[in-house]
């Protein structure tokens, strides 16, 4: 897995670990090559009166930030960068033009990439190349982010140097799917960037096109008491297991894995992934009755202190917890809280309100849902619950077997640009259950069908479907 023997290369706790100094491109003088005063007085290459309006107001201004990059590049020697120095300046210029004309000036796609891979780089060209030569070629590079988006500064600074030396110095932290994104580089730099990333930073690029897209996770057990499985370990493991599918397009369309540690769903897997792994438990919510009393006494702020900005009055456990429980499975007798766990749907409300008194159960695993997506093509979908519970322990063979069946079937049956959720919709969830070899359960539906048009299989009907009209006519002369 990964680069063998290098799993701890960047680990500051391990002696002899790699540091920024081992791989850096820029010297300290090059990095600190302008003063605050110069930045204040900096005149970018193009006038951008409209964008300048976006320097006002309290929220961090991406315009101010890009200007800062433009100044830094301006003060580096052109030899210190492999793509045009003006790229940040010309980006501002082109975006200003879009602000004036209210239309984009990026051309449609273009197939670029690195050898042996069919994804991870998105081609982009300006349609105003004469005016803004710095961004004539402005391809995006997607880089597979680490689990939980944790970084060391040594590694990040290395990433920054590559971005600036071989790209525009502008990034997305992070792209919508989760990747780190280098925004803007030229075709001749794609291979050198790939070599630097893999050799020096030990990181691979992400997915695009009809591939597995870069999987992503919530930070899970790293810093959250709600996490019911090790999201970061499982995300890493699945990413490695599916490297081929991530880099070499063999799918009808995109496919996303997302790993949420609990039903609160911080990575939005239920809305955004073809295959959503959501942590859950199957025993009882753990209760600390003493802490419940402290909530009632006002010694612990409700909802983890998340609502202290307004005076909501004294905490009322009956109204705020017991009566808001969607299944009405809780009781407060004035002294003790009790939960009828067989009726609980693990919605997280009571636990969110009193995280120091209630804890998710200890017998933990995950639910598996399929088919979420944004509108293109057949409309937006949320994921459908298919498998209620599976233990999720490394190496996750039980789960991988299910996922493999689903993906193989979709690869075989899916039409061009049909997501798995759309395929399931087209052929029916029942067919998908057959593919997975699982029985139906009421948990898969909100309610049984009200639409009375039904299908049956021939094998289910006594005597099958072939009948002889002569027999029929013996009983019913025409």
């Amino acid at each position, binding site marked *: 897995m990964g680069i063998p023997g290098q799993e701890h290369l960047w680990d500051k706790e391990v002696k002899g670990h790699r540091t920024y100094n081992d791989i850096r491109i820029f010297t300290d003088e090059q990095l600190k090559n302008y003063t605050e005063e110069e930045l204040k007085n900096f005149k970018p290459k193009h006038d951008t009166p409209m964008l300048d309006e976006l320097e006002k107001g309290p929220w961090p201004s991406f315009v101010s930030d890009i200007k800062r990059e433009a100044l830094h590049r301006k003060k580096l020697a052109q030899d210190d960068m492999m793509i045009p120095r003006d790229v940040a300046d010309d980006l501002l210029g082109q975006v200003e033009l879009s602000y004036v004309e209210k*239309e984009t000036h990026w051309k449609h796609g273009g197939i670029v990439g690195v050898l042996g891979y069919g994804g991870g780089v998105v081609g982009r060209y300006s349609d105003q190349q004469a005016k803004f030569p710095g961004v004539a070629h402005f391809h995006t590079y997607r880089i597979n982010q680490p689990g939980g988006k944790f970084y060391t500064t040594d590694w990040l600074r290395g990433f920054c140097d590559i971005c600036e030396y071989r790209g525009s110095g502008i990034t997305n932290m992070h792209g919508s799917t989760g990747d780190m994104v280098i925004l803007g580089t030229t075709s001749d730099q794609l291979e050198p960037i790939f070599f630097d990333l*893999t050799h020096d930073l030990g990181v691979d690029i992400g997915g695009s096109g009809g591939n597995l897209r870069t999987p992503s996770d919530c930070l899970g057990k790293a810093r959250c*008491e709600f996490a019911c499985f090790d999201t970061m370990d499982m995300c890493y493991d699945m990413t490695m297991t599916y490297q081929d599918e991530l880099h070499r397009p063999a799918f009808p369309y995109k496919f996303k894995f997302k790993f949420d540690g609990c039903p609160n769903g911080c990575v939005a897997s239920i809305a955004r992934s073809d295959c959503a792994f959501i942590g859950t438990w199957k025993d009882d919510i753990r209760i600390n009755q003493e802490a419940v009393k402290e909530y009632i006494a006002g010694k612990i702020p409700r909802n983890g202190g998340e609502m202290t900005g307004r005076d909501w009055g004294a905490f009322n456990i009956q109204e705020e917890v017991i009566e808001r429980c969607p299944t009405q499975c809780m009781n407060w007798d004035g002294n003790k809280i009790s939960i009828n766990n067989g009726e609980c749907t693990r919605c997280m409300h009571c636990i969110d309100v009193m995280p120091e008194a209630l804890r998710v159960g200890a017998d933990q695993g995950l639910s598996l849902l399929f088919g979420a997506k944004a509108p293109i093509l057949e409309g937006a979908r949320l994921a459908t619950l298919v498998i209620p519970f599976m233990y999720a322990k490394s190496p996750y063979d039980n789960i991988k077997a299910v996922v493999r069946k689903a993906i193989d079937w979709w690869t075989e049956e899916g039409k061009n640009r049909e997501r798995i959720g759309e395929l399931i919709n087209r052929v029916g969830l029942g067919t998908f259950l057959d593919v997975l070899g699982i029985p139906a359960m009421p948990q898969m539906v909100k309610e049984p069908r009200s639409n009375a048009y039904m299908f049956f299989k021939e094998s289910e009907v006594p005597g099958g479907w072939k009948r002889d009209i002569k027999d029929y006519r013996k009983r019913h002369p025409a």
Partner: protein
Amino acid sequence: MSKGKLGYFNPKKPMENRITDCGPQRYEQFLPPVIRKNYGKWVSHRILEPGLLMHVSETGDKVYTVRCGGARTMSVEHIREICDIADKHCGGYVRWTTRNNVEFITDSEEKAKALKKDLDARKFPAGSHKFPIGGTGFGITGIVHTQGWIHCHCPATDASGVVKSTADVLFEHFTDMKLPAKLRIALACCLNMCGAVHCSDIAILGYHRKPPIVDDKMIGGACEIPLVIAACPLYAIKPVTTPEGKKSVSVNYDKCMFCGNCYTMCAAMPLADSEGDCINILVGGKISNRITKPKFSKIVVAALPNNPPRWPEVTDTVKKIVDVYASDAKKYERIGDWTERIGWEKFFEKTGLPFTWHVIDDYRLAYDTLRTSTQFKFTEQAWAVSKTVGGI
């Protein structure tokens, strides 16, 4: 790292020394020591003040996290400043959240407080915060978004600019926790919804309103015509032969819903148009399973003007919705829970937003969203209908 045009890459032997399929970096090495030590051992958490989280482990350890907002379009100069801060206060570790926030993790409250002071003081020369502290609890957090005019070929609006303008207007809700529940905002600059905004409390969605223009000269060379025809969900595209005898396509304008699927398949069918492109607002979606089930966002405003550089019509509308929600919802109610309780007619009455025919679904399965009941509340918009037909 390598230097020079080609770096380590040798075009004559491109496969030499190539490392492939190595995947992401192993995450353990990037975890601060206190996180490693307490991995899987966390028992509870508390938000001490906006932007300051405390997590408690069964070992007795506590970690203090300072969260601050970030524009997702970020220069390496900015990331280097983040690294400087992390080196100074956090032993060289830092992380990002799924909503573009930056988190600095420390092992003591004093360190966290010192860090907050440091972050607060850092501003861009023109005055905006570099690291606004907040994004926790019952308020708004980072607005997730797509590329827009900074990098995308099919947007109906910009992304970063609309988000910056909206975040400015709602800034007090980023730095405080005074809303009835969490409020999650997302923007997508076209229907592709790279940002998957379809389950957000408030979604801002760029939308085209003119059918594609067919570039007859280009289409034959650039596109597979059968694929273009098949791309249209409404079967609006037909093959034609131009008077010059070239193979091309025509679009049935009456069927087109401006989705851009054809443009995704074929560069010769652009949709963008400075007059036509607009912004729609959706509300009431969520992804959490808390109390109620996850739900889609619903379109409540169609065709606000696409008005750079600060999109006042959009930010006014969003602010109005947030203000009414903040004053009217009960605690723990997300926007979607609130609208379900009061009814959509009351949502439109309270917000004063016009209800137009555009927001009544007329696509497949539209029937699912029509009201088949005599249970409704009377509002001005109801009287208007009755008056039109002489009912009152």
